[in-house]
C-alpha cells in the first residue's frame, strides 16, 4: 500500500454559468506571453460542442490516453500515441500532434490605426493582426468559438459524445428553440496515472509526490512534443516561441502559500471545490485495467478513507504530514466523490485516472417537461430522467464511460436533495412521498441536508481545504534551492527566449 495525497478538485456543473472569468483569471496570470497567446490552461466549453482544441475528445484522431491491451490474465495499459520504439521515430514528426489550425491563430487588433489613420471618408478600423507573424489575418477560430452554439449544426452536431445517440434523439436534442446545453470548465486533471508523464522522452514531466500536481521541468524539456498528443484532454500546450511544452500548474505558487488557485478563487458561480484525496498509488494504474463501464467504480476503490486509522498510519509512514491528513478528512472532494458519490471524473475511459471530478448538471435534465414548465408530478419523480433534454447517454459518455446507471444514480440523488429542500421550504410534498423519494434517490434527510449545505451555501473554507504545504521549507531542507530551481512548471532558470 502506497498511500499518497492528491490535491483534487470538484466542479459543480449545475452552478456554472459559462462566464469565462476563470479562463481570464488564469490567462492574465500565466499565459499572457509570446508563444503562449493561444494557450488556455483553463477554458470553458459549451456542451454539446467540439471544444478546444477542436474535437479534442476524438482519440481516434489525437491518440491520447491509455489503451487496455492484453488478455484477461495479463492486462496492460499502453500509451495510445506511441510505444517505446516508435516514439523515437515520432521525434522527427509526430503524426498526432494538433497544429495551430486545431486551436486558433492568436491575434490582436491594430489599434494604433484608430488613432493614426489619415482622415478619410470611412471610419478607421482596427484590423486583426496575427500574434505570430504580425501580418493582417482573417479570424477563423478562437478559444471559445462555439460558445453557446449548442444547437449549431457545425459545432454541436459534431460533438463526439453524441455518437451513440439515435437519429431521433439527436433531432430531439437539437430541436429549434428548445436546445439545451451545459458548460464544461476544464483545467488539467492532474491525473493519478498521467499519460503525458509516461510519454515524455526526456523525463521532463513529473508528478509532485506530495500533492500530485503534474508539472513540466522547462530545463529538461527538449520539445519532443510527445506529451501533447499523449494527453487525452489536450491540456498540454506547445510554446512555439520557446520550443517547450507548458501546462496548468494548479497555481502551485499560490497553493504552497495556502492561497486558492486563480481560477478557483475567481469563479463567479462558486462551482469549484478543492481538497485533498488520499489514494493508493499501487492501485492507481491497476484500477484502470477494467472494462470501460466499471471504471468509475474501480477508480473509487483506489481512494482511501482518511478516517481509517490503518490508512492514516500508512499515510504517515509514507511521509504524508498531519496537515494533509487533516485536510483529507475535511476535504469537500472526498465528500462529493466518495461519501455521496455524486462527483464523476471526465472521460474516465482514457484511463489516466483524472483527479478532477464533475457533479453532472441537473438543470438541462429538469428542463424538459411536457409543456415546458416544472411540475411536481409526485407519482413518478424521476420520469424526467428518461425524457431528459440532455440524454443520459450523452452524460454517461462524458462522465461515466457510457455507464448510464451511474449517471442515473447521481441524478436521482441530486433530484432527491432538491425535492427534499423544496418540501422543507414549500411544504408541498407529503412525508411518506418524501421518504419514498429519498429511498429511491439513495439518500437520507441528513445527507441531503449536508449535500445541500456544501452545494448551495458553503463558506470559502469549506470549498477550499488547502493543507499547509510549506514546499519552500521542505525543498530547502532536502535540496539546494539553486539546484531545484528549474524543477517547476514554468519556473525557468532562463528567460523564455531562444538564441542561436
Amino acid at each position: 500500500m502506497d498511500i499518497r495525497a492528491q490535491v483534487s478538485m470538484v466542479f459543480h456543473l449545475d452552478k456554472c454559468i459559462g462566464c469565462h472569468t476563470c479562463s481570464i483569471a488564469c490567462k492574465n496570470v500565466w499565459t499572457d506571453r509570446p508563444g503562449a497567446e493561444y494557450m488556455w490552461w483553463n477554458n470553458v466549453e459549451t456542451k454539446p460542442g467540439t471544444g478546444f482544441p477542436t474535437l479534442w475528445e476524438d482519440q481516434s484522431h489525437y491518440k491520447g490516453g491509455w489503451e487496455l491491451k492484453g488478455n484477461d490474465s495479463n492486462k496492460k495499459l499502453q500509451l495510445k500515441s506511441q510505444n517505446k520504439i516508435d516514439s523515437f521515430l515520432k521525434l522527427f514528426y509526430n503524426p498526432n500532434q494538433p497544429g495551430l489550425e486545431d486551436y486558433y491563430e492568436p491575434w490582436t487588433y491594430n489599434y494604433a490605426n484608430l488613432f493614426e489613420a489619415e482622415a478619410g471618408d470611412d471610419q478607421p478600423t482596427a484590423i486583426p493582426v496575427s500574434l505570430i507573424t504580425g501580418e493582417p489575418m482573417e479570424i477563423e477560430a478562437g478559444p471559445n468559438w462555439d460558445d453557446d452554439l449548442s444547437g449549431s449544426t457545425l459545432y454541436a452536431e459534431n460533438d463526439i459524445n453524441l455518437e451513440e445517440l439515435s437519429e431521433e434523439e439527436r433531432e430531439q436534442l437539437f430541436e429549434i428553440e428548445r436546445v439545451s446545453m451545459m458548460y464544461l470548465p476544464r483545467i488539467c486533471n492532474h491525473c493519478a496515472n498521467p499519460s503525458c508523464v509516461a510519454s515524455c522522452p526526456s523525463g521532463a514531466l513529473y508528478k509532485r509526490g506530495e500533492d500530485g500536481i503534474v508539472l513540466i521541468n522547462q530545463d529538461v524539456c527538449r520539445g519532443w512534443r510527445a506529451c501533447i498528443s499523449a494527453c487525452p484532454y489536450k491540456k498540454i500546450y506547445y510554446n512555439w516561441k520557446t520550443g517547450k511544452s507548458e501546462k496548468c500548474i494548479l497555481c502551485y505558487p499560490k497553493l504552497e502559500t495556502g492561497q486558492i488557485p486563480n481560477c478557483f478563487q475567481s469563479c463567479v458561480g462558486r462551482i469549484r471545490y478543492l481538497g485533498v484525496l488520499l489514494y493508493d498509488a499501487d492501485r492507481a494504474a491497476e484500477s484502470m485495467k477494467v472494462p470501460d463501464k466499471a471504471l468509475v467504480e474501480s477508480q473509487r476503490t483506489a481512494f482511501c478513507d482518511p478516517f481509517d486509522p490503518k490508512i492514516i498510519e500508512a499515510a504517515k509512514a509514507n511521509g504524508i504530514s498531519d496537515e494533509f491528513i487533516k485536510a483529507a478528512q475535511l476535504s469537500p472532494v472526498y465528500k462529493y466523490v466518495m461519501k455521496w458519490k455524486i462527483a464523476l471524473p471526465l472521460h474516465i475511459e482514457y484511463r489516466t485516472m483524472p483527479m478532477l471530478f464533475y457533479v453532472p448538471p441537473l438543470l438541462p435534465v429538469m428542463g424538459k417537461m411536457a409543456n415546458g414548465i416544472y411540475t411536481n408530478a409526485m407519482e413518478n419523480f424521476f420520469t424526467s430522467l428518461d425524457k431528459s433534454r440532455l440524454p443520459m447517454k450523452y452524460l454517461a459518455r462524458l462522465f461515466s464511460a457510457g455507464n448510464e446507471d451511474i449517471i442515473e444514480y447521481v441524478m436521482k440523488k441530486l433530484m432527491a436533495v432538491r425535492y427534499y429542500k423544496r418540501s422543507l421550504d414549500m411544504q408541498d410534498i407529503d412525508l411518506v412521498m418524501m421518504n419514498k423519494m429519498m429511498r429511491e434517490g439513495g439518500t437520507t434527510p441528513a445527507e441531503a441536508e449536508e449535500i445541500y449545505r456544501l452545494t448551495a451555501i458553503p463558506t470559502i473554507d469549506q470549498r477550499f481545504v488547502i493543507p499547509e504545504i510549506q514546499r519552500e521549507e521542505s525543498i530547502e531542507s532536502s535540496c539546494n534551492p539553486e539546484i531545484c530551481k528549474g524543477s517547476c512548471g514554468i519556473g525557468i532558470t532562463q528567460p523564455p527566449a531562444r538564441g542561436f
Partner: protein
Amino acid sequence: MTNTLLFIVLPYLAVFACVIGSIYRTRKEPMSYSSLSSQFLENHGLMWGSLPWHLGILLILLAHILAFVCPGFWQTLTSNQVLLLSIEAAGFGLSILCLVGLVILAIRRLTSPRIQAVTTPMDLFVIALLLAQVALGAAMAVHCKWGSAWCSGTTTPYLWSLLLFQPDLSTIEDLPLIAKSHIVCAWLFILIIPFSRLIHLFAVPLEYLFRPPQNVVWNNSRKLKEECSAFVAEDTRRHFLKAALGIGFGAFLLSVGTLNKVFNFFFGPRLSKKEETELMEVKLAHLESTVDQRKLELERQASNYIMVAALSELNQSSGKYFIDYQMQPAIAFKGKDGLPLLISAKCTHLGCTVGNKVDEQGRILCPCHVSYFNIETGQPNAEAPAKAPLGHLSWVIMDERGSILASRNLEGKTACSVNQQALANGKVYIAKSQEDKT
C-alpha cells in the same frame, strides 16, 4: 597553408569548440537545448521534409562513423563486391532522400510566414550548409564513386592521425576538390553544433527506453527519507559517472600512448641489415672474450706452465696483467734486479683488481679504497684499509726449448742458471706445481 588551415586547424578548432561549447550550452543554457520544433506552426510540409531527412542522415552518419571507427571491419565489408555495391547504392539512395527532405525543409522555411517568425539566420545557414554537404556527398557518389571503399585508405587514416595528435595530410591532400570540400563542410558542421539548433544531436532521449513510465518527484518528509537519498544517489551516480569517464578517458589516453609501444616491445625490433651486423659484431666480440676466458681456464687446468710474457716485455713502471692458476688477476713487473716480479693483483682488502702503474715510491694503487702496495714487499701503506700484503707469485724462465733458465719459489728463493744476457731472451712462466703448494 590553406590545407593546414582547413584540415588541421579547422578540425581541432571545430572539435574543441564543439566539445566546450556543447558542454557549456548543456550546463548553462539547458533551456535552449533543443531543436525548436516548428511542427506546431506548420504541419504538412514537415512530414515530407523532416522524416526523409532524419532517416537518411542518421543511417548515413552511422555508416560514416562505422567506417572511421572500425576501418578494418569496414574494409572487409567493402571488399565484398556485392556488399560494396549495396552500400554504395544505399548510401546514394539515402543521400537523395536527405536531399529531398532538406529541399522541402528549406522551401518550407523560406515560404511559410509562421515559420519565419521562429527562424534565425543561423537556421538558414545550417540548412544551407547541410544542403551543400549532402549535395557534395551525393556528387561524390557519382564522380568519385565507391567512396565507401577508398575512404579507408584516405580519409580514415587522416581522421585517425588527427585523433592521435599527429596530423597527417598526405592521404587527403591529393583528393579531388569535391571530397576535400566534403571534409571541410563536415568540420564546419561540427564547428557550428553548439551555436545552432544542431545541438539537439546530443539530446537523443535514450533514457526513455529504460525509465519507468511514471515520474514522481517528492518534496515532503518522504522525500527527505527516501528520495533525498535518491538525490544523493543521483549525486553519487554523477560522481560515479565522472569517475568512469575520468578513468576511462585516462585509460584511453594511456593506451593511445602505450599499447602500441607495449605491443612493439613484445613484437621485438625489426633491425636493418646494418644494425644487425653491428649487433652481431658486438656479440661476437663478447663471445670471443668469453672464449678467451674459457681458454685461459682450460690452459690453467691442463698445462703445468703458463706463459706470462717474454722477459723483455716486462718493465719496472707498468705491470702486465695476467691471470694466475686461481683465475685471479696478477701483475708482472721487472724487478730492480732485472728478474721478473710477479705479484697478485687482488687487493687483500676487498678483492679489487689493483692498478698496474707503479708510482714514484714504487707502489701500485688499488682504486677501490685507495691502498698503496709496495711491489717489492707487497705491503700496503700504513693508512690503507688493506692490512695484509699482496702475495708474490713464483715463476720460472724458460727458453724456447723448454729448459728452465731461472726460477723463484714462493719463499722468494731465486735460482738462476744462466747470466742476465741469456735470460733476456727467455720467457716468464708460472708453474702449476708451485702454485698448488699454496
